[in-house]
C-alpha cells in the first residue's frame, strides 16, 4: 500500500471520526444551522440520525455503487434489525446481548437465502424480486399475525432491558457516539471489503459482468458476497436505529425507505465512500431542516405558489435528485473525483501485472503492486 493511500483511506477518515467524537463536548451553538446549542439533546439527536443514515446509505452503496445491483428491498434487512431485536427484547423478554446476536444471525441467514434466490435474475428483474420480498416483509409487519410488531401502533422498546447508558435524554450523547461508532465501523469495513480481491471483482461486475465471466470468475458468488455483507450491515444499522428511536415503527418496512437510501447514495455519489456517507448525512439534515425552513417567517411571506413546494422536503430533495441524475452523474463526489481508473481496469491490471491495455492509467505500477 502506498503512503498516499494509507493517508487517504485510513488516517484522514480516522482523524475525521475522532474529531466528530468531540462534538457533544462543544459548548457553543451555530445559529443558522441548528436551533439549539450543539451539545443539547435536540441537536445531538438530529446529528445521530444524520450519522446513522450516512452509514445506512453506505451499506446500500455496497450493492448499488460498488457491485451495480439495483435493489428495491434493502429496507427489509434494516427492518429485520429494527423489529427482530426489539421483539426479542420486549415481547419475548430476552436480555439485550442474546437478542442482538440472534437478530444478526437471522439477518445473515436471511440475506444468504433471499440473496441466493434473488440473484438468479439480474437487472430490473432483480430489483423487482427484492421489492417483492421486502413488500412481503412490510405486509407481515403491518398485519402482525403473532401480535409481535403491533402493526400501525409500532412497538416501543422495553427500556428496562436496554443498557442503562443508552436510555434517557441525559444519555443522548452516548447514542450519538453509538451512531458515530457504527458509521466508522461500516466505513472501514467497506474500505477493507471493496479493496480486497473479491471487492475488486464486485466493481468489475458493475462495469461489465460478461467480461468478468470471460476472465473465468463466477459473478453469482461474488454478487452474493456483496449482497450478504451489505444486508447484514444494514441489519446492524437497524439495531442502532431501534436504540436511537427507542422502538420500531412501520416506516422502515416501506418501499419508500429503500428509495430514500437510493436518493442519498445517488445525490452523494454512487461507488464512493465519502459520497454515500455525505449523501446520507446531507439528506437527513436537509429533510429535518427544510421543515423548519418551510415554517420560517421568510417563507411565510412568499406567495402560495412558491411556499407550498418549499414546505415539502421530499419534493425539493426529489427535484435535486433528478437534476443530479441528469446533469451530474457521479453525484457530489463525482465533482471531486473525475477520471479515476474504473473497477474493471483495476481488476484486469491486478490479474495481469503491468498489462494495462489502452486508455490512460494514472500510475500502473502502484495499482498492480496492490494486486490480488
Amino acid at each position: 500500500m502506498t503512503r498516499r493511500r494509507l493517508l487517504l483511506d485510513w488516517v484522514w477518515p480516522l482523524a475525521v471520526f475522532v474529531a466528530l467524537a468531540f462534538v457533544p463536548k462543544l459548548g457553543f451553538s451555530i445559529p443558522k444551522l441548528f436551533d439549539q446549542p450543539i451539545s443539547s439533546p435536540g441537536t445531538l439527536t438530529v446529528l445521530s440520525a444524520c450519522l446513522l443514515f450516512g452509514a445506512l446509505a453506505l451499506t446500500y452503496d455496497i450493492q448499488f455503487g460498488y457491485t451495480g445491483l439495483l435493489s428495491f428491498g434493502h429496507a427489509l434487512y434494516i427492518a429485520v434489525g429494527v423489529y427482530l431485536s426489539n421483539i426479542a427484547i420486549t415481547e419475548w423478554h430476552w436480555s439485550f446481548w442474546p437478542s442482538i446476536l440472534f437478530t444478526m444471525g437471522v439477518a445473515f441467514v436471511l440475506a444468504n437465502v433471499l440473496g441466493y434466490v434473488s440473484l438468479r435474475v439480474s437487472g430490473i428483474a432483480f430489483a423487482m424480486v427484492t421489492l417483492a420480498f421486502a413488500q412481503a416483509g412490510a405486509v407481515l409487519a403491518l398485519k402482525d399475525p403473532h401480535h409481535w410488531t403491533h402493526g400501525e401502533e409500532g412497538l416501543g422498546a422495553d427500556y428496562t432491558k436496554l443498557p442503562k447508558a443508552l436510555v434517557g435524554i441525559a444519555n443522548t450523547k452516548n447514542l450519538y457516539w453509538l451512531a458515530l461508532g457504527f458509521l466508522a465501523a461500516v466505513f472501514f469495513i467497506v474500505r477493507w471489503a471493496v479493496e480486497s480481491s473479491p471487492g475488486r471483482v464486485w466493481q468489475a461486475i458493475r462495469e461489465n459482468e460478461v467480461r468478468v465471466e470471460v476472465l473465468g470468475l463466477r459473478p453469482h458468488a461474488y454478487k452474493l458476497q456483496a449482497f450478504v455483507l451489505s444486508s447484514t450491515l444494514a441489519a446492524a444499522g437497524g439495531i442502532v436505529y431501534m436504540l436511537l428511536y427507542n422502538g420500531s415503527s412501520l416506516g422502515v418496512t416501506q418501499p419508500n425507505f429503500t428509495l430514500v437510501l437510493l436518493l442519498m447514495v445517488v445525490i452523494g455519489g454512487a461507488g464512493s465512500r465519502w459520497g454515500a456517507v455525505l449523501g446520507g448525512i446531507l439528506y437527513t439534515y436537509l429533510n429535518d431542516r427544510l421543515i423548519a425552513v418551510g415554517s420560517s417567517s421568510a417563507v411565510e411571506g412568499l406567495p402560495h405558489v412558491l411556499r407550498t413546494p418549499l414546505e415539502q422536503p421530499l419534493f425539493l430533495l426529489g427535484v435535486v435528485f433528478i437534476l443530479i441524475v441528469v446533469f451530474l452523474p457521479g453525484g457530489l463526489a463525482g465533482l471531486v473525483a473525475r477520471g479515476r481508473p474504473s473497477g474493471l481496469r483495476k481488476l484486469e491490471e491486478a490479474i495481469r501485472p503491468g498489462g494495462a491495455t489502452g486508455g490512460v492509467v494514472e500510475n500502473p505500477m502502484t495499482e498492480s503492486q496492490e494486486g490480488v
Partner: protein
Amino acid sequence: MSTFILLTITGLGLGAMYFLIASGLSLIYGLMGVLNFAHGAFITVGSYTTWWTSVHVFEGVHSNLWHFILSALLGLLMGGIFAALVELILIRPLYARHIEQVLVTVGLQLAFVALVQGIWGPDPKSFVVPQWLHGTTDVAGAHIPNDRWIEITVAAIVLVLLQLFLRRTRYGLIIRAGVENRAMVQALGIDVRKAFTLVFAVGGVAAALAGVLSGVYFNVVGPEQGTSLLIFAFIVVVIGGLGSIGGSAVAAVVVALTQQYTNYYASAGIGDMVVVLLLGVVLLVRPRGFAGAVVGGRA
C-alpha cells in the same frame, strides 16, 4: 355462494385497474427498457384532475352524469399530456441509460407525491360520483356495487382498443416490432423515438383512467393511492410478461382474484403476501412471465 360472486366481481373490478396501469407500464418497458415508477404520478394526475374539476368547475355535485364524464375526460387528457412531457423532458435526454432513466422516474414519483401532499394535504378527498354508482345490482343473491361494472367494462373496452391499435395501425406495428427488436426497427430507418413518446402518452391516459376508476372504486382519492396501486401493477406486468398486453390482462385478473380470495378466505393481508411471493416464484421459475420479453434481458 353470493359471497363468492361478490368477491369475484370485486376482484375483477380491482383487476381492471391493475390492467389499465400495467398495460402502459408493460408497453413502456417492452419498447424502451424503462421501469416507469412515474406511472404512479400519472395515476394521481388523472384522479386529482377529475376531483379538482368536479369540485371547482362543476361545484362538487357529481350526480350530473355529464359533468362527471367531462371531468374524467379532462383527467385523461392531463394524464396523457403529463406523461408525454415526462418522456420528452426527462426520459429522452437519458436515452439508452436504463438505470438512470429508472432513477429519474423514482425521483419524479417521490417528488410528485410530496408536491400533491403539499398542495392538497395528505388526507384523502372524497370523490363524488353519479348517484347510480352508489347503488347495487343483485346477481344470484349477491349485492354487487354498481361501480364494479363500470370498471370491468371500461377495462375491457381499453383492452380491445389497445389490441386494435397495436394490430391495425402503422404506429401499432412499429411499437410491436420495437418490443420484439428495437435495433432492427431503427436499422430499417424508422424513427422509434416518436413511438416512445406515443407509448408514454397512451400509458399516461390509461393510468389516468385507472386513477379516475380508483376514485370510483374507493370513493376517495389520496396522494399515496397511486403508489400502492403501482406496486401491484408492477407485479402484474412481470407475471404477465413484459411488452404483452394480453399477458397483462390475464395476469391482472389472476393477481386481483388471488388477492381477493386469499384476503377473504385466509386472512386479511395474506392475499397481498401471496401475490408478492407469486411474483418471486414466477420470476425465478419462468423469467419470461406468461408471455413476452425476458425480464432484465435488455440491461
